[in-house]
Protein backbone atom coordinates (compact mmCIF):
# COMPACT_ATOMS: atom_id res chain seq x y z
CA UNK A 1 0.00 0.00 0.00
CA UNK A 2 2.87 2.28 0.85
CA UNK A 3 4.38 1.81 -2.56
CA UNK A 4 1.13 2.51 -4.28
CA UNK A 5 0.88 5.81 -2.44
CA UNK A 6 4.35 6.56 -3.61
CA UNK A 7 3.27 6.03 -7.19
CA UNK A 8 0.28 8.24 -6.71
CA UNK A 9 2.38 10.96 -5.17
CA UNK A 10 5.05 10.54 -7.73
CA UNK A 11 2.35 11.12 -10.26
CA UNK A 12 1.16 14.08 -8.30
CA UNK A 13 4.63 15.41 -7.74
CA UNK A 14 5.73 15.06 -11.31
CA UNK A 15 2.33 16.31 -12.24
CA UNK A 16 2.35 15.39 -15.90
CA UNK A 17 -1.10 14.69 -17.19
CA UNK A 18 -3.46 14.88 -20.03
CA UNK A 19 -6.05 17.08 -18.56
CA UNK A 20 -9.01 15.29 -19.98
CA UNK A 21 -11.55 14.97 -17.19
CA UNK A 22 -13.76 12.64 -19.12
CA UNK A 23 -15.46 11.15 -16.06
CA UNK A 24 -16.19 14.48 -14.42
CA UNK A 25 -17.44 16.12 -17.57
CA UNK A 26 -21.21 16.63 -17.45
CA UNK A 27 -21.45 14.54 -14.24
CA UNK A 28 -23.85 17.15 -12.94
CA UNK A 29 -24.52 15.73 -9.49
CA UNK A 30 -20.99 16.92 -8.65
CA UNK A 31 -20.74 20.71 -8.33
CA UNK A 32 -17.15 20.58 -9.66
CA UNK A 33 -18.59 19.49 -13.03
CA UNK A 34 -19.00 23.19 -13.68
CA UNK A 35 -15.19 23.50 -13.62
CA UNK A 36 -15.05 21.65 -16.94
CA UNK A 37 -18.23 23.22 -18.31
CA UNK A 38 -19.40 26.44 -16.69
CA UNK A 39 -22.61 25.96 -18.64
CA UNK A 40 -23.26 22.52 -17.13
CA UNK A 41 -26.81 21.95 -15.96
CA UNK A 42 -25.88 22.01 -12.28
CA UNK A 43 -28.39 23.32 -9.78
CA UNK A 44 -28.33 23.94 -6.05
CA UNK A 45 -29.52 26.40 -3.52
CA UNK A 46 -25.98 26.75 -2.36
CA UNK A 47 -22.96 24.55 -1.90
CA UNK A 48 -19.50 24.73 -0.53
CA UNK A 49 -16.61 22.36 -0.81
CA UNK A 50 -14.85 21.03 2.24
CA UNK A 51 -11.73 23.22 2.24
CA UNK A 52 -8.73 21.52 0.64
CA UNK A 53 -10.77 18.31 0.24
CA UNK A 54 -13.35 19.38 -2.31
CA UNK A 55 -11.29 18.59 -5.35
CA UNK A 56 -8.06 16.67 -5.35
CA UNK A 57 -6.97 15.42 -8.70
CA UNK A 58 -3.87 14.17 -10.37
CA UNK A 59 -3.22 12.88 -13.82
CA UNK A 60 -0.12 11.21 -15.08
CA UNK A 61 0.34 10.04 -18.58
CA UNK A 62 3.17 8.79 -20.68
CA UNK A 63 2.38 7.61 -24.16
CA UNK A 64 5.31 5.29 -24.62
CA UNK A 65 6.26 3.78 -21.28
CA UNK A 66 4.94 3.00 -17.84
CA UNK A 67 6.47 3.17 -14.38
CA UNK A 68 6.85 -0.60 -14.60
CA UNK A 69 8.97 -0.35 -17.74
CA UNK A 70 11.54 1.72 -15.89
CA UNK A 71 11.32 0.68 -12.26
CA UNK A 72 10.20 -2.94 -12.22
CA UNK A 73 12.07 -4.87 -9.55
CA UNK A 74 12.78 -7.75 -11.90
CA UNK A 75 16.53 -8.02 -12.02
CA UNK A 76 16.86 -6.42 -15.44
CA UNK A 77 19.62 -3.84 -15.50
CA UNK A 78 18.21 -0.34 -15.18
CA UNK A 79 20.30 0.88 -18.10
CA UNK A 80 18.78 -1.78 -20.34
CA UNK A 81 15.33 -0.62 -19.29
CA UNK A 82 16.20 2.97 -20.11
CA UNK A 83 17.54 1.88 -23.47
CA UNK A 84 14.39 -0.13 -24.21
CA UNK A 85 12.16 2.78 -23.30
CA UNK A 86 14.15 5.15 -25.49
CA UNK A 87 14.24 2.71 -28.38
CA UNK A 88 10.51 2.12 -28.41
CA UNK A 89 9.65 5.80 -28.01
CA UNK A 90 9.27 8.32 -30.75
CA UNK A 91 9.89 12.05 -30.57
CA UNK A 92 6.15 12.62 -30.48
CA UNK A 93 5.60 10.51 -27.39
CA UNK A 94 4.77 12.66 -24.46
CA UNK A 95 4.84 12.73 -20.72
CA UNK A 96 2.09 14.83 -19.21
CA UNK A 97 1.15 15.54 -15.64
CA UNK A 98 -1.51 17.72 -14.18
CA UNK A 99 -2.37 18.08 -10.57
CA UNK A 100 -5.03 20.28 -9.04
CA UNK A 101 -6.02 20.97 -5.48
CA UNK A 102 -9.12 22.97 -4.73
CA UNK A 103 -8.50 25.22 -1.75
CA UNK A 104 -12.04 26.40 -1.41
CA UNK A 105 -15.08 26.51 -3.60
CA UNK A 106 -18.69 27.39 -3.31
CA UNK A 107 -21.73 28.56 -5.14
CA UNK A 108 -25.20 29.90 -4.56
CA UNK A 109 -28.36 30.67 -6.44
CA UNK A 110 -29.03 34.34 -6.96
CA UNK A 111 -32.50 35.80 -7.09
CA UNK A 112 -35.56 34.18 -5.63
CA UNK A 113 -36.69 30.65 -5.28
CA UNK A 114 -37.76 30.50 -8.89
CA UNK A 115 -34.50 31.96 -10.15
CA UNK A 116 -32.26 29.74 -12.14
CA UNK A 117 -29.10 31.84 -12.03
CA UNK A 118 -26.07 30.73 -10.08
CA UNK A 119 -22.79 32.20 -9.00
CA UNK A 120 -19.85 30.04 -8.13
CA UNK A 121 -16.38 30.91 -6.95
CA UNK A 122 -13.25 29.34 -5.66
CA UNK A 123 -9.52 28.99 -5.75
CA UNK A 124 -7.32 26.11 -6.67
CA UNK A 125 -3.68 25.36 -7.10
CA UNK A 126 -2.49 23.68 -10.25
CA UNK A 127 0.68 22.09 -11.49
CA UNK A 128 1.27 21.27 -15.14
CA UNK A 129 4.12 19.50 -16.79
CA UNK A 130 4.40 18.64 -20.45
CA UNK A 131 7.35 17.09 -22.20
CA UNK A 132 7.96 15.36 -25.47
CA UNK A 133 10.32 12.43 -25.42
CA UNK A 134 13.73 13.98 -26.27
CA UNK A 135 14.53 10.92 -28.32
CA UNK A 136 17.57 12.10 -30.26
CA UNK A 137 19.22 13.66 -27.23
CA UNK A 138 18.59 10.49 -25.24
CA UNK A 139 20.22 8.43 -27.98
CA UNK A 140 23.19 10.76 -28.06
CA UNK A 141 23.54 10.48 -24.28
CA UNK A 142 23.22 6.72 -24.28
CA UNK A 143 25.26 5.83 -27.33
CA UNK A 144 27.25 8.84 -28.41
CA UNK A 145 27.66 9.61 -32.11
CA UNK A 146 30.02 6.83 -33.19
CA UNK A 147 27.29 4.54 -34.47
CA UNK A 148 25.28 7.38 -35.98
CA UNK A 149 27.60 8.76 -38.65
CA UNK A 150 25.47 10.70 -41.11
CA UNK A 151 22.62 11.25 -38.66
CA UNK A 152 21.45 14.68 -37.55
CA UNK A 153 20.45 14.62 -33.90
CA UNK A 154 17.47 16.92 -33.76
CA UNK A 155 17.69 19.52 -30.99
CA UNK A 156 14.03 20.28 -31.65
CA UNK A 157 13.23 17.05 -29.79
CA UNK A 158 13.79 19.02 -26.63
CA UNK A 159 10.37 20.43 -25.86
CA UNK A 160 8.94 20.87 -22.41
CA UNK A 161 7.03 23.25 -20.22
CA UNK A 162 6.09 23.33 -16.57
CA UNK A 163 4.11 25.67 -14.40
CA UNK A 164 2.87 26.00 -10.84
CA UNK A 165 0.06 28.45 -10.42
CA UNK A 166 -2.94 29.38 -8.35
CA UNK A 167 -6.25 30.29 -9.89
CA UNK A 168 -8.99 32.46 -8.43
CA UNK A 169 -12.26 32.27 -10.26
CA UNK A 170 -15.82 33.53 -10.29
CA UNK A 171 -18.43 31.97 -12.50
CA UNK A 172 -22.01 32.58 -13.44
CA UNK A 173 -24.46 30.27 -15.10
CA UNK A 174 -28.10 30.66 -15.89
CA UNK A 175 -30.77 28.39 -17.14
CA UNK A 176 -32.01 30.75 -19.80
CA UNK A 177 -34.90 28.52 -20.78
CA UNK A 178 -35.93 24.93 -20.29
CA UNK A 179 -33.76 24.12 -23.26
CA UNK A 180 -30.63 26.21 -22.71
CA UNK A 181 -28.08 26.73 -19.97
CA UNK A 182 -25.32 29.28 -20.52
CA UNK A 183 -22.34 29.84 -18.29
CA UNK A 184 -19.02 31.60 -18.06
CA UNK A 185 -16.20 32.02 -15.63
CA UNK A 186 -13.48 34.60 -15.20
CA UNK A 187 -10.12 33.52 -13.86
CA UNK A 188 -7.13 35.28 -12.43
CA UNK A 189 -3.96 33.26 -12.65
CA UNK A 190 -1.03 33.77 -10.36
CA UNK A 191 1.94 31.84 -11.65
CA UNK A 192 4.63 31.09 -9.07
CA UNK A 193 7.02 29.29 -11.37
CA UNK A 194 7.08 28.76 -15.09
CA UNK A 195 9.55 27.21 -17.48
CA UNK A 196 9.08 26.97 -21.22
CA UNK A 197 11.40 25.49 -23.79
CA UNK A 198 9.21 24.53 -26.70
CA UNK A 199 10.62 26.42 -29.67
CA UNK A 200 13.95 24.72 -30.06
CA UNK A 201 15.55 23.71 -33.30
CA UNK A 202 18.94 22.80 -34.67
CA UNK A 203 21.01 19.68 -34.90
CA UNK A 204 24.21 17.92 -33.99
CA UNK A 205 25.71 16.25 -37.04
CA UNK A 206 28.70 14.02 -37.64
CA UNK A 207 29.23 12.90 -41.20
CA UNK A 208 31.95 11.58 -43.42
CA UNK A 209 32.27 13.19 -46.79
CA UNK A 210 34.73 12.07 -49.43
CA UNK A 211 37.08 14.77 -50.63
CA UNK A 212 37.03 16.86 -47.45
CA UNK A 213 40.32 17.36 -45.64
CA UNK A 214 39.08 16.13 -42.27
CA UNK A 215 37.88 12.69 -41.26
CA UNK A 216 34.53 13.97 -40.06
CA UNK A 217 32.25 16.82 -40.94
CA UNK A 218 31.05 17.96 -37.54
CA UNK A 219 28.47 20.67 -37.04
CA UNK A 220 26.38 21.87 -34.16
CA UNK A 221 23.62 24.21 -35.22
CA UNK A 222 21.77 25.38 -32.18
CA UNK A 223 18.65 27.40 -31.68
CA UNK A 224 17.83 26.64 -28.05
CA UNK A 225 15.84 28.83 -25.74
CA UNK A 226 14.68 28.34 -22.17
CA UNK A 227 12.39 30.92 -20.64
CA UNK A 228 11.81 30.88 -16.92
CA UNK A 229 9.82 32.95 -14.52
CA UNK A 230 10.05 32.67 -10.77
CA UNK A 231 12.91 30.19 -10.97
CA UNK A 232 16.14 32.12 -11.63
CA UNK A 233 16.63 32.98 -7.96
CA UNK A 234 16.80 29.33 -6.98
CA UNK A 235 19.52 28.55 -9.48
CA UNK A 236 21.94 31.05 -7.99
CA UNK A 237 24.70 29.80 -5.72
CA UNK A 238 23.95 32.37 -3.06
CA UNK A 239 20.34 31.23 -2.69
CA UNK A 240 19.72 29.88 0.77
CA UNK A 241 16.14 29.01 1.40
CA UNK A 242 13.44 26.47 1.01
CA UNK A 243 12.51 26.20 -2.64
CA UNK A 244 9.16 24.53 -1.99
CA UNK A 245 7.90 27.09 0.48
CA UNK A 246 9.26 29.97 -1.58
CA UNK A 247 7.51 28.74 -4.71
CA UNK A 248 4.31 28.21 -2.72
CA UNK A 249 4.55 31.75 -1.37
CA UNK A 250 5.16 33.17 -4.83
CA UNK A 251 2.31 31.13 -6.27
CA UNK A 252 -0.25 32.74 -4.01
CA UNK A 253 1.15 36.13 -3.14
CA UNK A 254 3.81 37.18 -5.60
CA UNK A 255 3.09 35.45 -8.86
CA UNK A 256 3.08 36.62 -12.44
CA UNK A 257 -0.52 37.52 -13.17
CA UNK A 258 -2.74 36.45 -15.99
CA UNK A 259 -6.34 36.38 -17.04
CA UNK A 260 -8.54 33.75 -18.55
CA UNK A 261 -12.09 32.72 -19.20
CA UNK A 262 -14.13 29.54 -19.37
CA UNK A 263 -17.40 29.36 -21.27
CA UNK A 264 -19.91 26.65 -21.91
CA UNK A 265 -23.46 25.70 -22.66
CA UNK A 266 -25.98 22.92 -22.37
CA UNK A 267 -28.77 22.61 -24.88
CA UNK A 268 -31.69 20.18 -24.86
CA UNK A 269 -32.96 19.31 -28.32
CA UNK A 270 -35.55 17.22 -26.50
CA UNK A 271 -36.02 16.28 -22.89
CA UNK A 272 -33.77 13.30 -23.41
CA UNK A 273 -31.35 14.56 -26.04
CA UNK A 274 -28.75 16.92 -24.73
CA UNK A 275 -25.79 18.72 -26.29
CA UNK A 276 -23.01 20.42 -24.35
CA UNK A 277 -19.85 22.28 -25.23
CA UNK A 278 -17.23 24.15 -23.28
CA UNK A 279 -13.91 25.88 -23.57
CA UNK A 280 -11.70 25.99 -20.50
CA UNK A 281 -8.67 28.12 -19.66
CA UNK A 282 -8.72 30.39 -22.66
CA UNK A 283 -6.18 32.68 -21.12
CA UNK A 284 -2.64 33.82 -20.68
CA UNK A 285 -0.11 34.65 -18.03
CA UNK A 286 2.16 37.65 -18.43
CA UNK A 287 5.35 36.23 -17.00
CA UNK A 288 6.97 39.15 -15.25
CA UNK A 289 8.49 38.05 -11.92
CA UNK A 290 12.12 36.98 -11.69
CA UNK A 291 12.27 36.32 -15.41
CA UNK A 292 15.28 34.92 -17.18
CA UNK A 293 15.66 33.69 -20.71
CA UNK A 294 18.73 31.71 -21.65
CA UNK A 295 19.56 31.13 -25.30
CA UNK A 296 22.20 29.19 -27.17
CA UNK A 297 22.04 30.29 -30.78
CA UNK A 298 24.61 29.79 -33.47
CA UNK A 299 26.49 27.32 -35.62
CA UNK A 300 29.81 25.70 -34.85
CA UNK A 301 31.96 23.54 -37.10
CA UNK A 302 34.53 21.44 -35.32
CA UNK A 303 37.72 20.90 -37.28
CA UNK A 304 40.18 19.65 -34.69
CA UNK A 305 43.76 20.94 -34.51
CA UNK A 306 45.03 22.23 -37.81
CA UNK A 307 48.78 22.96 -38.03
CA UNK A 308 49.91 24.74 -41.20
CA UNK A 309 53.73 24.70 -40.72
CA UNK A 310 53.95 28.10 -42.40
CA UNK A 311 54.70 30.02 -39.26
CA UNK A 312 51.21 31.39 -38.95
CA UNK A 313 50.40 31.53 -35.30
CA UNK A 314 46.69 31.12 -35.26
CA UNK A 315 45.84 30.16 -31.71
CA UNK A 316 42.99 27.73 -31.62
CA UNK A 317 40.98 27.28 -28.52
CA UNK A 318 38.09 24.89 -28.80
CA UNK A 319 36.09 26.30 -25.92
CA UNK A 320 36.58 29.92 -26.87
CA UNK A 321 35.61 29.17 -30.44
CA UNK A 322 32.57 27.25 -29.34
CA UNK A 323 31.50 30.00 -26.96
CA UNK A 324 31.98 32.54 -29.72
CA UNK A 325 30.01 30.52 -32.24
CA UNK A 326 27.18 29.50 -29.92
CA UNK A 327 27.18 32.05 -27.11
CA UNK A 328 25.09 31.65 -23.99
CA UNK A 329 22.98 34.75 -23.71
CA UNK A 330 20.82 35.70 -20.77
CA UNK A 331 17.93 38.07 -21.30
CA UNK A 332 15.40 39.46 -18.89
CA UNK A 333 12.43 40.13 -21.10
CA UNK A 334 8.87 39.61 -20.01
CA UNK A 335 7.04 36.98 -21.97
CA UNK A 336 3.52 35.71 -22.32
CA UNK A 337 2.48 32.10 -21.96
CA UNK A 338 -0.86 30.73 -23.08
CA UNK A 339 -2.63 28.39 -20.76
CA UNK A 340 -3.30 24.92 -22.13
CA UNK A 341 -6.78 25.48 -23.47
CA UNK A 342 -9.23 22.61 -23.26
CA UNK A 343 -12.37 22.08 -25.30
CA UNK A 344 -15.10 19.60 -24.60
CA UNK A 345 -18.30 18.73 -26.36
CA UNK A 346 -20.82 15.97 -25.75
CA UNK A 347 -24.05 14.53 -27.00
CA UNK A 348 -26.17 12.55 -24.56
CA UNK A 349 -29.30 10.45 -24.97
CA UNK A 350 -31.31 9.56 -21.87
CA UNK A 351 -33.82 6.78 -21.40
CA UNK A 352 -35.77 4.93 -18.73
CA UNK A 353 -37.94 7.37 -16.86
CA UNK A 354 -37.19 7.76 -13.24
CA UNK A 355 -40.01 6.89 -10.85
CA UNK A 356 -39.72 7.87 -7.28
CA UNK A 357 -42.01 8.55 -4.41
CA UNK A 358 -40.39 11.92 -4.10
CA UNK A 359 -41.37 12.89 -7.59
CA UNK A 360 -44.71 14.20 -6.45
CA UNK A 361 -43.07 17.22 -4.84
CA UNK A 362 -42.44 18.77 -8.17
CA UNK A 363 -43.97 22.15 -7.53
CA UNK A 364 -45.39 22.32 -10.99
CA UNK A 365 -42.04 21.65 -12.61
CA UNK A 366 -43.04 18.64 -14.60
CA UNK A 367 -39.57 17.79 -15.64
CA UNK A 368 -38.90 14.22 -16.55
CA UNK A 369 -35.91 12.52 -15.02
CA UNK A 370 -34.17 9.55 -16.53
CA UNK A 371 -32.34 6.65 -15.00
CA UNK A 372 -29.88 6.09 -17.83
CA UNK A 373 -27.86 8.16 -20.22
CA UNK A 374 -25.48 7.19 -23.00
CA UNK A 375 -23.46 9.37 -25.27
CA UNK A 376 -20.14 10.50 -26.60
CA UNK A 377 -17.69 13.23 -25.67
CA UNK A 378 -14.83 14.83 -27.55
CA UNK A 379 -11.86 16.48 -25.89
CA UNK A 380 -9.17 18.69 -27.35
CA UNK A 381 -6.28 20.38 -25.63
CA UNK A 382 -3.73 22.76 -27.07
CA UNK A 383 -0.17 21.47 -26.81
CA UNK A 384 3.18 22.17 -28.47
CA UNK A 385 3.40 20.71 -32.03
CA UNK A 386 -0.13 19.26 -32.29
CA UNK A 387 -3.25 19.40 -30.11
CA UNK A 388 -4.18 16.40 -28.01
CA UNK A 389 -7.53 14.80 -28.78
CA UNK A 390 -9.62 12.13 -27.12
CA UNK A 391 -12.95 10.49 -27.75
CA UNK A 392 -15.04 9.09 -24.92
CA UNK A 393 -18.18 6.97 -24.95
CA UNK A 394 -20.05 6.94 -21.68
CA UNK A 395 -22.92 5.40 -19.78
CA UNK A 396 -24.38 7.10 -16.75
CA UNK A 397 -26.90 5.62 -14.38
CA UNK A 398 -28.80 6.84 -11.44
CA UNK A 399 -28.73 3.92 -8.99
CA UNK A 400 -30.58 5.37 -6.06
CA UNK A 401 -32.10 8.74 -5.58
CA UNK A 402 -28.75 10.08 -4.40
CA UNK A 403 -26.20 7.81 -6.01
CA UNK A 404 -25.01 8.23 -9.56
CA UNK A 405 -22.44 6.23 -11.42
CA UNK A 406 -20.71 7.00 -14.70
CA UNK A 407 -18.60 4.68 -16.79
CA UNK A 408 -16.43 5.89 -19.66
CA UNK A 409 -14.44 4.33 -22.44
CA UNK A 410 -11.79 6.61 -23.86
CA UNK A 411 -9.52 6.48 -26.88
CA UNK A 412 -6.56 8.83 -26.74
CA UNK A 413 -2.83 9.12 -27.29
CA UNK A 414 -2.07 7.13 -24.19
CA UNK A 415 -4.43 4.22 -24.51
CA UNK A 416 -7.25 2.84 -26.60
CA UNK A 417 -8.85 0.94 -23.77
CA UNK A 418 -9.10 3.45 -20.99
CA UNK A 419 -12.14 2.66 -18.88
CA UNK A 420 -13.13 5.23 -16.28
CA UNK A 421 -15.52 4.97 -13.40
CA UNK A 422 -17.12 7.68 -11.36
CA UNK A 423 -19.37 7.64 -8.35
CA UNK A 424 -21.15 10.50 -6.71
CA UNK A 425 -23.23 9.92 -3.62
CA UNK A 426 -25.09 12.32 -1.42
CA UNK A 427 -26.12 11.66 2.16
CA UNK A 428 -28.26 14.47 3.40
CA UNK A 429 -26.32 17.46 2.15
CA UNK A 430 -22.99 15.76 2.15
CA UNK A 431 -21.71 14.93 -1.31
CA UNK A 432 -18.75 12.67 -1.82
CA UNK A 433 -17.36 11.73 -5.18
CA UNK A 434 -14.55 9.64 -6.55
CA UNK A 435 -13.50 9.41 -10.17
CA UNK A 436 -10.80 7.18 -11.55
CA UNK A 437 -9.78 6.22 -15.02
CA UNK A 438 -7.85 3.42 -16.59
CA UNK A 439 -9.42 0.94 -14.17
CA UNK A 440 -8.33 -2.00 -16.32
CA UNK A 441 -4.78 -1.12 -15.42
CA UNK A 442 -5.49 -1.07 -11.70
CA UNK A 443 -4.76 -4.75 -11.48
CA UNK A 444 -1.22 -3.50 -11.86
CA UNK A 445 -1.18 0.25 -11.78
CA UNK A 446 2.57 0.35 -12.35
CA UNK A 447 2.03 -0.90 -15.90
CA UNK A 448 -0.46 1.82 -16.80
CA UNK A 449 0.53 4.41 -19.36
CA UNK A 450 -1.74 6.87 -17.69
CA UNK A 451 -3.73 7.17 -14.54
CA UNK A 452 -5.99 9.82 -13.14
CA UNK A 453 -8.04 10.20 -10.09
CA UNK A 454 -10.16 12.88 -8.55
CA UNK A 455 -11.90 12.81 -5.22
CA UNK A 456 -13.74 15.43 -3.28
CA UNK A 457 -16.18 16.29 -0.55
CA UNK A 458 -18.87 18.96 -0.73
CA UNK A 459 -21.92 20.14 1.11
CA UNK A 460 -24.75 20.70 -1.34
CA UNK A 461 -28.03 22.20 -0.26
CA UNK A 462 -31.15 22.00 -2.36
CA UNK A 463 -34.48 23.62 -1.63
CA UNK A 464 -36.40 21.95 1.11
CA UNK A 465 -40.07 21.55 0.60
Amino acid at each position, binding site marked *: *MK*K*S*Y*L*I*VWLFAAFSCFAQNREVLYNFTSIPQASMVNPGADVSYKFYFGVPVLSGISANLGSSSFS*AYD*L*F*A*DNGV*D*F*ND*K*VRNVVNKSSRNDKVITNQQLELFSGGFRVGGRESRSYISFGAYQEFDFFMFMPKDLALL*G*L*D*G*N*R*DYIGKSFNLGDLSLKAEVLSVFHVGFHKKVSDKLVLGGRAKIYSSGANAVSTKNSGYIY*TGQTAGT*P*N*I*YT*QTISSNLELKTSGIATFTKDEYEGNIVSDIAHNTFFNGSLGLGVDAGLTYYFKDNLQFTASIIDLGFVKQSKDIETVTYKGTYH*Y*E*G*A*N*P*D*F*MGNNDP*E*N*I*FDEFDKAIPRETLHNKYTTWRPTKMYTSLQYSFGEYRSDEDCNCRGQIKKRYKNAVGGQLFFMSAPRTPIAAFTAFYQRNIFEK*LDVKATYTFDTFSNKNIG*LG*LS*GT*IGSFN*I*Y*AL*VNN*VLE*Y*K*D*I*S*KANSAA*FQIGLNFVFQDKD
Partner: protein
Amino acid sequence: MKAYFFRILNILVLPLLFFSCSSDLDFDQVKDLKLEPVVVANLAYFDIQANKVIDNGTTNVIYDVRDFDIFKDKFFNNRLKRADFDVEIENTIQRAFSVNMLLMNANNDVLETISFTVPAYAGSPNVIKYPTEVFENQRLDLLKQTVKIGFSIVIAPGPPLNQNSTGSLKLRSGATAYLVIE
Protein backbone atom coordinates in the same frame (compact mmCIF):
# COMPACT_ATOMS: atom_id res chain seq x y z
CA MET B 1 -29.11 5.38 7.49
CA LYS B 2 -25.78 4.43 8.95
CA ALA B 3 -25.61 1.22 6.94
CA TYR B 4 -26.54 3.13 3.85
CA PHE B 5 -23.75 5.58 4.52
CA PHE B 6 -21.17 2.86 4.87
CA ARG B 7 -22.43 1.11 1.80
CA ILE B 8 -21.89 4.26 -0.21
CA LEU B 9 -18.54 4.84 1.39
CA ASN B 10 -17.46 1.33 0.49
CA ILE B 11 -18.50 1.74 -3.09
CA LEU B 12 -16.64 5.00 -3.29
CA VAL B 13 -13.53 4.00 -1.47
CA LEU B 14 -13.07 0.52 -2.84
CA PRO B 15 -11.96 1.66 -6.27
CA LEU B 16 -9.21 3.65 -4.60
CA LEU B 17 -7.96 0.55 -2.88
CA PHE B 18 -7.21 -0.83 -6.29
CA PHE B 19 -4.23 1.42 -6.13
CA SER B 20 -2.68 -1.11 -3.84
CA CYS B 21 -2.30 -3.56 -6.69
CA SER B 22 1.05 -2.81 -8.16
CA SER B 23 4.12 -4.74 -9.17
CA ASP B 24 7.08 -4.22 -6.93
CA LEU B 25 8.88 -1.16 -8.09
CA ASP B 26 12.35 -0.14 -7.11
CA PHE B 27 13.03 3.54 -7.60
CA ASP B 28 16.55 3.21 -6.19
CA GLN B 29 17.52 1.83 -9.57
CA VAL B 30 17.97 5.40 -10.72
CA LYS B 31 21.28 5.27 -8.88
CA ASP B 32 22.40 2.55 -11.28
CA LEU B 33 22.05 4.85 -14.24
CA LYS B 34 25.27 4.67 -16.18
CA LEU B 35 25.60 6.29 -19.58
CA GLU B 36 28.36 5.03 -21.78
CA PRO B 37 28.38 7.16 -24.89
CA VAL B 38 31.11 6.70 -27.45
CA VAL B 39 31.93 9.95 -29.17
CA VAL B 40 33.98 10.39 -32.31
CA ALA B 41 35.54 13.69 -33.30
CA ASN B 42 38.16 15.19 -35.52
CA LEU B 43 41.58 15.21 -33.93
CA ALA B 44 43.91 17.02 -36.32
CA TYR B 45 44.57 17.38 -39.99
CA PHE B 46 47.05 19.01 -42.30
CA ASP B 47 47.84 19.15 -45.99
CA ILE B 48 51.41 20.12 -46.81
CA GLN B 49 51.98 21.03 -50.46
CA ALA B 50 55.40 20.01 -51.77
CA ASN B 51 55.83 23.34 -53.56
CA LYS B 52 55.54 25.23 -50.27
CA VAL B 53 58.45 23.31 -48.76
CA ILE B 54 61.73 24.39 -50.23
CA ASP B 55 64.90 22.48 -49.43
CA ASN B 56 68.06 21.21 -51.02
CA GLY B 57 67.30 17.51 -50.73
CA THR B 58 68.93 16.86 -47.35
CA THR B 59 67.18 16.04 -44.09
CA ASN B 60 64.74 18.78 -43.20
CA VAL B 61 62.44 19.27 -40.24
CA ILE B 62 59.24 21.31 -40.15
CA TYR B 63 57.31 21.92 -37.00
CA ASP B 64 54.07 23.43 -35.74
CA VAL B 65 52.11 23.29 -32.51
CA ARG B 66 48.44 23.92 -31.79
CA ASP B 67 46.37 24.37 -28.66
CA PHE B 68 44.34 21.36 -27.75
CA ASP B 69 42.44 22.24 -24.63
CA ILE B 70 39.59 19.72 -24.58
CA PHE B 71 40.96 18.12 -21.42
CA LYS B 72 40.57 21.36 -19.51
CA ASP B 73 36.88 20.49 -19.36
CA LYS B 74 36.53 18.74 -16.01
CA PHE B 75 33.29 16.99 -16.88
CA PHE B 76 34.87 15.44 -19.93
CA ASN B 77 38.19 14.78 -18.26
CA ASN B 78 36.74 12.99 -15.24
CA ARG B 79 34.48 10.74 -17.25
CA LEU B 80 36.84 9.76 -20.04
CA LYS B 81 37.77 6.10 -19.56
CA ARG B 82 39.50 5.41 -22.82
CA ALA B 83 40.52 7.28 -25.96
CA ASP B 84 41.58 5.98 -29.34
CA PHE B 85 43.48 7.90 -32.00
CA ASP B 86 43.17 6.82 -35.61
CA VAL B 87 45.58 8.39 -38.07
CA GLU B 88 45.77 8.07 -41.82
CA ILE B 89 48.41 9.66 -44.02
CA GLU B 90 48.52 10.01 -47.79
CA ASN B 91 51.86 10.94 -49.35
CA THR B 92 52.22 11.97 -52.97
CA ILE B 93 55.65 13.59 -52.58
CA GLN B 94 58.77 11.75 -53.75
CA ARG B 95 60.35 11.92 -50.30
CA ALA B 96 59.96 9.73 -47.23
CA PHE B 97 58.75 11.25 -43.96
CA SER B 98 58.65 10.58 -40.29
CA VAL B 99 55.61 12.31 -38.79
CA ASN B 100 55.78 12.77 -35.03
CA MET B 101 52.73 13.75 -33.03
CA LEU B 102 53.80 15.34 -29.76
CA LEU B 103 51.44 15.51 -26.81
CA MET B 104 52.51 18.42 -24.61
CA ASN B 105 51.49 19.78 -21.25
CA ALA B 106 51.15 23.39 -20.13
CA ASN B 107 54.92 23.68 -19.56
CA ASN B 108 55.62 22.57 -23.12
CA ASP B 109 57.00 19.27 -21.79
CA VAL B 110 56.50 16.49 -24.29
CA LEU B 111 54.41 13.84 -22.56
CA GLU B 112 54.42 11.39 -25.40
CA THR B 113 55.61 11.16 -28.95
CA ILE B 114 53.74 9.04 -31.47
CA SER B 115 55.68 8.40 -34.66
CA PHE B 116 54.39 7.45 -38.08
CA THR B 117 56.74 6.33 -40.81
CA VAL B 118 55.73 7.42 -44.31
CA PRO B 119 57.49 5.95 -47.37
CA ALA B 120 58.26 8.11 -50.40
CA TYR B 121 55.69 8.36 -53.18
CA ALA B 122 56.40 5.82 -55.87
CA GLY B 123 53.72 6.65 -58.41
CA SER B 124 50.65 4.93 -57.05
CA PRO B 125 48.28 6.54 -54.54
CA ASN B 126 48.83 5.14 -51.11
CA VAL B 127 46.75 5.98 -48.04
CA ILE B 128 48.27 4.41 -44.96
CA LYS B 129 45.97 3.75 -42.04
CA TYR B 130 48.09 3.35 -38.93
CA PRO B 131 47.17 1.01 -36.09
CA THR B 132 44.83 2.57 -33.56
CA GLU B 133 46.61 4.25 -30.66
CA VAL B 134 44.73 3.22 -27.54
CA PHE B 135 44.96 5.36 -24.41
CA GLU B 136 43.98 3.63 -21.21
CA ASN B 137 45.15 3.70 -17.60
CA GLN B 138 48.52 5.45 -17.20
CA ARG B 139 48.76 6.37 -20.85
CA LEU B 140 45.31 7.93 -20.57
CA ASP B 141 46.40 9.91 -17.50
CA LEU B 142 49.25 11.41 -19.53
CA LEU B 143 46.88 12.21 -22.35
CA LYS B 144 44.60 14.05 -19.95
CA GLN B 145 47.41 16.48 -19.13
CA THR B 146 47.74 17.40 -22.77
CA VAL B 147 46.97 21.00 -23.69
CA LYS B 148 48.89 21.24 -26.96
CA ILE B 149 49.54 18.99 -29.91
CA GLY B 150 52.76 19.47 -31.80
CA PHE B 151 53.75 18.01 -35.13
CA SER B 152 57.37 17.54 -36.01
CA ILE B 153 57.89 16.24 -39.52
CA VAL B 154 61.27 14.91 -40.51
CA ILE B 155 61.73 14.90 -44.26
CA ALA B 156 64.22 12.22 -45.32
CA PRO B 157 66.85 13.02 -47.97
CA GLY B 158 65.70 12.81 -51.59
CA PRO B 159 64.99 14.98 -54.62
CA PRO B 160 65.08 18.69 -53.63
CA LEU B 161 61.70 20.40 -53.21
CA ASN B 162 61.05 23.69 -54.96
CA GLN B 163 58.20 25.76 -56.34
CA ASN B 164 57.63 23.27 -59.13
CA SER B 165 57.50 20.17 -56.95
CA THR B 166 54.22 18.27 -57.05
CA GLY B 167 52.35 16.24 -54.52
CA SER B 168 51.39 16.74 -50.92
CA LEU B 169 51.51 15.10 -47.52
CA LYS B 170 48.03 14.80 -46.03
CA LEU B 171 47.21 13.71 -42.52
CA ARG B 172 43.73 13.07 -41.25
CA SER B 173 42.98 11.83 -37.78
CA GLY B 174 40.06 11.15 -35.55
CA ALA B 175 39.61 10.50 -31.88
CA THR B 176 37.17 8.14 -30.24
CA ALA B 177 36.26 8.97 -26.65
CA TYR B 178 34.71 6.34 -24.40
CA LEU B 179 32.85 8.10 -21.63
CA VAL B 180 31.22 6.66 -18.55
CA ILE B 181 28.71 8.98 -16.92
CA GLU B 182 27.35 7.75 -13.59
